[in-house]
């Protein structure tokens, strides 16, 4: 257990695909990780064979991210060992992992947004010269990229890249750092299905060529079946099963993931939508963060008991539209009304009209990361009884009670109501916000990518809740990048492009080629 390898930073010379030894395998042996009294991983083992793609599956909060972070030295496991190739290694920090040929792409982007791809890549190396000759570095990177199946604009600031290109840049970065074992934490959740297929195909090709061993975390069975050789399934911090993908079906994997508990049954949309318009948006204009117009006159009506789906490629004004409706951005022109009253998204109006919001990236847009789960769950209700006694005296006990109730009802996995919400797994943050927004009476619901990063059971659960809310008469505006989700849930579907609604149809009458053309801006 004590093979403490000395870590000497070495200059990294990018290897072409042909040279260099074949990629090593990776083994995690009986890893245990505790956070306080909570055991996130309980003696979990995983074996990644050299030159293969290995999928890691599990519910939200099962411990997938924790396991790979232990391997990468981001966390220090309480027990267990990591073997790279045939040598046991002690990895103290991500930089040490790099010297062992391990590279990881995290669940969220870790490139510096305002620096160029070139700057990001060069600065991530283990040894950077004291004075950097950018022109020479650029030449070297270009030469390296020529040997790669990827193309990335190296001079573009990362912030200007589309999600797919950002993800590619993250992967290119790891390859540039000469990673031979690549760990990807939900690399496809930010990508469209086409982008995901392209990226996974490229990675699989490199694994087949013996250049890479890949460990990939995903919630999508389709990707596991199509691109992975082996699979390991975690359930509540324990190993639930592993083996060759060929021996499994999506159903058998699903059973391994959730055990005997049942998933929500899909809820049918019942009855036609109401006739009364509930949310009316007329000629809405707004600027983006840079002060440039992002919405160019959006007209949209949502009736009672209707789900209106907004499709579109991300970055076409969806974020700004949701922000205006949530009161996070001022409109520059146009009007929003609810019922017959104008609506300016003040807290008072939101409460009166029962407007609720599920913004995307909830940890950033709908939570205070350092505050507790209970406090975050009380954001809608802390100033009214029973949490606020006499309207201004906070009752923390009542707040905790309310939170415990929500945690149980929405199955939020947390160490307790007092844990900072930032310590929850990605999917559980989403659930916590959902619990806050959906547990009260809702007349208007604005949801943006509500199942982003959720496991299949949670997806079924949340879709059922949204449809149930609609059946109760809630007007739902559902913004999503996932066309399948929209086709399944919506009563009516609109396409947003360049800050305006360019097409309207119903799922039944939808013509995918027309929708695709509209999304592409033609």
């Amino acid at each position, binding site marked *: 257990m004590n093979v403490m390898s000395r870590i000497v930073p070495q200059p990294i010379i990018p290897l072409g695909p042909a040279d260099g030894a074949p990629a090593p395998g990776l083994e995690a042996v009986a890893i245990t990780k505790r956070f306080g009294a909570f055991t996130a991983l309980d003696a979990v083992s995983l074996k990644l064979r050299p030159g293969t793609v290995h999928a890691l599956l599990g519910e939200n909060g099962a411990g997938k991210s924790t396991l790979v972070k232990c391997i990468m030295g981001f966390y220090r496991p309480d027990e267990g060992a990591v073997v790279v190739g045939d040598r046991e290694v002690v990895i103290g920090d991500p930089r040490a992992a790099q010297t062992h040929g391990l590279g990881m792409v995290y669940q969220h982007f870790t490139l510096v947004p*305002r620096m160029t791809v070139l700057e990001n890549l060069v600065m991530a190396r283990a040894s950077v010269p004291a004075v*950097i000759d950018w022109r020479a570095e650029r030449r070297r990177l270009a030469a390296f990229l020529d040997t790669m199946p990827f193309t990335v604009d190296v001079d573009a600031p990362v912030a200007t890249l589309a999600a797919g290109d950002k993800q590619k840049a993250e992967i290119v970065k790891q390859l540039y750092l000469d990673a031979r074992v690549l760990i990807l934490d939900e690399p496809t959740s930010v990508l469209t299905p086409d982008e995901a297929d392209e990226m996974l195909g490229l990675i699989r090709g490199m694994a087949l060529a013996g250049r890479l061993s890949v460990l990939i975390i995903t919630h999508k069975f389709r990707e596991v079946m199509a691109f992975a050789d082996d699979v390991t399934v975690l359930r509540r911090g324990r190993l639930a099963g592993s083996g060759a993908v060929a021996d499994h079906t999506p159903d058998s994997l699903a059973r391994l993931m959730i055990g005997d508990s049942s998933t929500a049954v899909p809820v049918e949309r019942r009855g036609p939508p109401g006739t009364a318009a509930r949310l009316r948006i007329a000629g809405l204009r707004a600027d983006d*963060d840079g*002060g440039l117009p992002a919405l160019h006159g959006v007209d949209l009506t949502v009736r009672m008991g209707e789900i209106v789906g907004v499709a579109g490629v991300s970055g076409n004004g969806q974020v700004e539209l949701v922000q205006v409706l949530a009161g996070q951005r001022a409109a520059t022109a146009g009007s929003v009304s609810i019922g017959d009253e104008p609506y300016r998204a003040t807290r008072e109006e939101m409460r009166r009209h029962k407007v609720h919001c599920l913004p995307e990236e909830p940890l950033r847009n709908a939570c205070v990361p350092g505050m507790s789960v209970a406090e975050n769950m009380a954001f809608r209700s802390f100033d009214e009884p029973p949490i606020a006694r006499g309207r201004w005296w906070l009752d923390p006990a009542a707040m905790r009670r309310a939170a415990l109730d929500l945690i149980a009802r929405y199955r939020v996995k947390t160490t307790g109501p007092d844990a900072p919400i930032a310590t929850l797994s990605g999917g559980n943050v989403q659930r916590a916000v959902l619990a806050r927004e959906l547990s009260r009476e809702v007349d208007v619901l604005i949801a943006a990518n509500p199942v982003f990063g959720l496991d299949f059971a949670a997806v079924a659960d949340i879709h059922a809740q949204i449809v149930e809310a609609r059946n109760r008469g809630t007007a739902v505006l559902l913004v999503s990048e996932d066309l399948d989700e929209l086709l399944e849930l919506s009563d009516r579907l609109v396409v947003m492009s360049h800050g305006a609604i360019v097409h309207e149809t119903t799922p039944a009458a939808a013509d995918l080629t027309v929708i695709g053309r509209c999304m592409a801006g033609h």
Partner: protein
Amino acid sequence: MDHASLGWWGVPLAVLAGAIRVSTPFLFVSLGECLTEKSGRINLGLEGTLVMGAMSGYATAYLTGNPWAGVLVAGLAGSLLGTLHAMICALERVNDIAVGIALMLLGTGLAFFLGKPFIQPQAPQLPAIPFGWWSSSAQVRSALDINPLFLVGLALAPLLLWGLRTTRWGMVLRIVGESAEAARAMGYQINRVRLLATAAGGFFAGVGGSFLSLSYPGSWNERLSSGQGITAVALVIFARWDPVLCVWASLLFGGAGALGPALQSVGVTQGYHLFNAAPYVLTLAIMIATSSSRHRLAGAPAELSVTR
């Protein structure tokens, strides 16, 4: 030759001379603050650092007879205060702005306390370089008596810009200021980088302070600084966190500060105090003109607590 011989031409000349003189402390403090803010931390304590630098520089010059030793000690005193700021901010749940304000009060208070014995004696001053030797006009000559510290500051600005763009430490500094998350993933130690950046920023501010007591106005007393340290923070924002723009901004503020005395020297005494307030009015005007409630400032390091 005397004032009258140049007449109204004396005003722009005096403003220019003033700009060069008055801008030097602005320049050093703003370069220091720029460096610190690039690492994602704001140090409002530089006002205290400035006064502390003025006092310690003056005292050292007086005691050793060497004004350059004073400059060095002023810088070291400044980096000591910067280090203190960084060390306190590295603790959990500590706000850099609050710490800065506390250190501003500590720095000035300590300087007044320790500097009492040095108000009376006259310390040797920094020599100026007579760039006006060719002129027969006393006014021109005195205007072009330029302190070497100003030239050092001028050279420092492009050097910093180059360093931030092309050296390893400059890039690491910017990464830490742009995204602590990314810096951590790359394995850089955020607190150590910020400590070095704040200490270096403090050094510059301390040197800026020594200019006050060792060159212009050139004495030590408790009314030496009139908020230059704080104004310099606004100046960094105005300069969009660009060291070279800091030079121009400093000159602008210096020139505005010299307007009152320059007008007085040609006999315009009306509104003297109004003209003296020019730098402050300018600060306010610039802050209002460059701010927006709708989008964030271009160029601001993303980790800065005031812009997040």
